[in-house]
């Protein structure tokens, strides 16, 4: 059996095996689940070594003489002290380092990610030569109104009482409605992508796998 046909058959069996979970969790899906987790765990180790440690750590340290890279595993291994009650604080020390850098990265990303979204909201609210009043209202006015009402939904510390609060409450309700419209639209959008993936699998099963047995299938739909 050639590598190609072995791969083809393995892939077909695996695909059908995974689909059994649609009926319910069962012995077949269970064994494929464990194989999947096992393969990805093995692959993770290979990947971490081949794509990360070998090139970034082992080679500089051993082949280029950069001896100070030895501190990296020492710091990394501090994580393992979570299993020792006495030395636990050292694990917390390195966790603290990662917590701090997680914050630091968030600070750094704040403007690159959010500022285009902020200035993207600066929509002119009046018509000019390039855009008529109809479009301005249908686009820019609506945009600003939805943005503000949705944001008003995310105010947590203001009671929806009193004159201002009641208006905020109404705006928040409207904002929630707009959110629901957005969620519906996003759901629909995604439906297409998910169906494409399934179509790809059925094409594989019908055209490639069944087609390798019965040529008629290989010619359909492509």
């Amino acid at each position, binding site marked *: 059996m050639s590598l190609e046909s072995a791969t083809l058959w393995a892939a077909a069996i695996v695909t059908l095996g995974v689909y059994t979970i649609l009926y319910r969790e069962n012995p077949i899906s269970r064994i494929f689940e464990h194989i999947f987790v096992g393969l990805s765990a093995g692959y993770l180790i290979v990947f971490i070594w081949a794509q990360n440690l070998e090139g970034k750590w082992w080679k500089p340290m051993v082949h280029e003489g950069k001896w100070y890279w030895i501190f990296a595993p020492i710091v990394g291994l501090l994580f393992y002290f979570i299993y020792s009650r006495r030395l636990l604080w050292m694990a917390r020390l390195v*966790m603290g380092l990662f917590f701090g850098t*997680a914050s630091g990265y968030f600070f750094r990303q704040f*403007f690159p990610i959010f500022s285009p979204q*902020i*200035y993207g909201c600066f929509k*002119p609210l009046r018509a000019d030569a390039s855009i008529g009043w109809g479009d301005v209202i249908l686009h*820019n006015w609506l945009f600003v109104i939805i943005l503000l009402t949705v944001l008003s939904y995310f105010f947590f510390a203001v*009671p929806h009482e009193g004159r201002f609060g009641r208006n905020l409450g109404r705006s928040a309700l409207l904002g929630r409605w707009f959110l629901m419209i957005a969620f519906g639209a996003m759901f629909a959008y995604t439906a297409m992508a998910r169906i494409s993936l399934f179509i790809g699998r059925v094409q594989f099963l019908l055209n490639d796998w069944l087609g390798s047995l019965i040529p008629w299938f290989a010619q359909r739909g492509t």
Partner: protein
Amino acid sequence: MGGLEHANWFMSALFGSMCLIIVVSVLLAQRGREMFIRRIPGLNAIEEAVGRATEMGRPVFFSTGLHGITIVTLQALAILSYIVKLAAVHATRIVVATASATLYPVLEESVREAYTAADHPEAFRSEDVRFVTEEQFAYAMGCVGIMAREQTATNFFFGAFFAESLILAENGRALGALQVAGCPDPVQIPFFIATCDYVVIGDEYYAASAYLTREPTLTGSLIGQDIAKAILIALVIVGVVVASAVGGADSATNNFLLNLLASGAQ
């Protein structure tokens, strides 16, 4: 057009003032001011959800999603820590699964710590905090397997979720669990809405720990967040006014406010 490799003075000032406001409100709150937080239904449901598992005598499942140690998962951990304390008091088992090896030790440690804080250190089982695997769909399948075999009565999905969200939540629903989900990313929210009993949307996710614990530090932070959001709104309104006067994104040359936000320091 300059880049955003570094902030310019305007960004630094805006960022600095937002940080300052949040920190000052935290410090003021720690002095003991009573704070109001509006009702967030998804978060009210957490107690009910744990209670259901207790009544049925079945475990609770918690997934932290795919990210390693990031701000999103640290918030998930804060919510988890509350849920663990609740479960420990009710003597309900909780199984936690992560897809990040880096997050795993932090998770194990904070779950153990939550059990200790609830005065039930003996209830902690290392086996119940699990690293499943870093591959997205292997993680999803692994989690579905855990939910099915452990017969979990309640599933919580808090953290950074991507396409696997629907695999987790739809299978969990089919297995008959009560589900509560929360995720700051808007993209996965529709699927959680379609499959979970309660969903925490957007910033409600970051308000969760304040809402649940009512700790002064956190509620104070929430007030600061509201003020910071008001600043952003004001900025947008000013931006819209300026754009109406001199032109929007198409005429960047005229719009000074836009330039301040679009180009960093050179």
